[in-house]
C-alpha cells in the first residue's frame, strides 16, 4: 500500500470523512486551524478506527488512513459535533 504521509494529506482525509470542516478540502486555498481542533479531529478518527485516541498523527494512524475504504463520511446524522438538533 502507498504510504500516506504529511499533515496536509491527513487534513484532507479528515475533512473528506467528516472530522474537519469541508472547507479544508478546497485545494485553491490554504488553511490554518488551532491545534486543539486538529488534535481533536485526529483523536476522533482514532477513536472511530479503534486506535488509541492520542490526538497525535502517528505512524499507525497514517497507516489506517491509507487503507482502502468506503467513500461515505464517518460523521453524519447523529454526529456529536452538531451545533443544533
Amino acid at each position, binding site marked *: 500500500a502507498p504510504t500516506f504521509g504529511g499533515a496536509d494529506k491527513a487534513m484532507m482525509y479528515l475533512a473528506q470523512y467528516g472530522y474537519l470542516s469541508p472547507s479544508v478540502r478546497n485545494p485553491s486555498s490554504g488553511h490554518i486551524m488551532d491545534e486543539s481542533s486538529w488534535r481533536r479531529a485526529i483523536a476522533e478518527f482514532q477513536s472511530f478506527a479503534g486506535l488509541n485516541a492520542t490526538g497525535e498523527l502517528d505512524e499507525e494512524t497514517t497507516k489506517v488512513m491509507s487503507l*482502502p475504504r*468506503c467513500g461515505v463520511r464517518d460523521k453524519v446524522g*447523529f454526529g456529536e459535533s452538531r451545533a443544533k438538533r
Partner: protein
Amino acid sequence: YALQGSRWRVKNLTYKISKYPSKLNRAEVDNELAKAFSVWSDYTDLTFTQKRSGQVHIEIRFEKGEHGDGDPFDGPGGTLAHAYFPVYGGDAHFDDAEMWSINSRRGTNLFQVAAHEFGHSLGLSHSDVRSALMAPFYRGYDPAFQLDQDDIQGIQALYGHKTQTDIGGLPGLPGAAAPPSVPRATTQQPSAEDPALCGDPKFDTIFNSADGGTFIFKGEHYWRLTEDGVASGYPRLIARAWPGLPGNIDAAFTYKNGKTYFFKGSKYWRYNGQKMDGDYPKDISEGFTGIPDNLDAALVWSGNGKIYFYKGTKFWRFDPSQRPPVKATYPKPLSNWEGIPDGIDAALQYTNGYTYFFKGGSYWRFNDRTFSVDSDNPAFPRSTAFWWLGCSSAPRGTVGGNARLSDAP
C-alpha cells in the same frame, strides 16, 4: 451501529444496475449484487427485486473519476465506492478503476463492498465496531461471511425483525419472531385490571428480556406485559424468578450480548436469562466506571446501540468498547432529550423502534429519528395505566389531560 436518520417507507425495494463494471461478466455481477442485498433481507422483511429498466428505488453504477455527483473516484485503492442514504435516493456508485473480483481474495471483493454500500442505501451510517460490515474500512474477502450482531441490530432498528422464518435453518439467529406492536388497551378486549398497578401506575423499572418479553418491576414484584396490558398470573416475586436479585430495583436493560443488567443503589447484577451470570452484586463504580449510583433509569438506545443512564436532571452515555467508556463531555442535561422531563422513573427502548420514558403515571414516546417527543393525538404524556397496563377505566391522556375517547392513535 449508527443510523443516518432516514429510511425507506416501503419494504419491497427495486434496484437497477445502470452501468456494469467493465471487466466482469454481467450475469455474475447480477448474482453478486443480489447476494449482497440478501445480507440485509435475511434479517428483515425487506425484499429487493432487480429491474432492467424504468424507475427503481436504488440505482447502481460502476464509474471512473468524476461521474456527476461532485464526489469523484480516485483510481485504484483509496475510496472504493459510495452510496447515498434513503433521504438522498439510495443510489450506490462503485469505482470502476478498482480490480473488482468475485469469490476471490485477489483484487477488491465485489460482494463485500456492495453489501456495505447497500447498508448505506438502507439508512445505516458507519459503525465504530471493527467487526461490523458497516465499519468504513475494506476488510478483504471472507468466504464465511456472516453479518455482525452490530449490523443486525442496526438494520432491525430501522426495519424491524424478520417475521417470516425462511432463515429458520440457522439456529440462534435473531429476528424470527414478529415485532410486537405497542402494548395498548383496546375497547374490544379489555385486559383484566391489576389493582396494584392500576391504582398506582408508577413503577421502578421496565425492560425487555433477551427473548423479547417486556417486564415491569415494582417493589418486590414483577409483571409481564402483553399486547393489551399485563399477563394473567401476575404479580410474581422478583426474588423467585431472578434468584439473588433484590426488590426495589432502580434501573435495568438487556444489552446486545443478551445479558440483562439490574442496578440498585451502588450495586449492579448481571443475569443470563433468569440465572445470575457470575458473582454479583458488583459495584457500579467498577463495572460501569463513570456512571453514578442511585440511578433513575437506563436503556440501550436504538440511535446508536449505546447505553444511556439517567439520574435527576442529567444523563450519561456508556460505550463499553471505548476507553474511557464515558466521555469527559458527560453528564449532559436531560433537556437534550427534547420534551422529556427531569427525574424520570423508568425508560425503555421498545421493540417497535421508539424510546419510552415513564414518570409518575405518565409516559412520553420519543421518536429516535426526529429526536423529539412525538406530537400525536392524544398528546404525550399519556396515561401509562391505560396504554401500557391495560387499565381500561383509566383516562387515555395524562392525568388531568383532555384526550377524548374517540382519539384512536
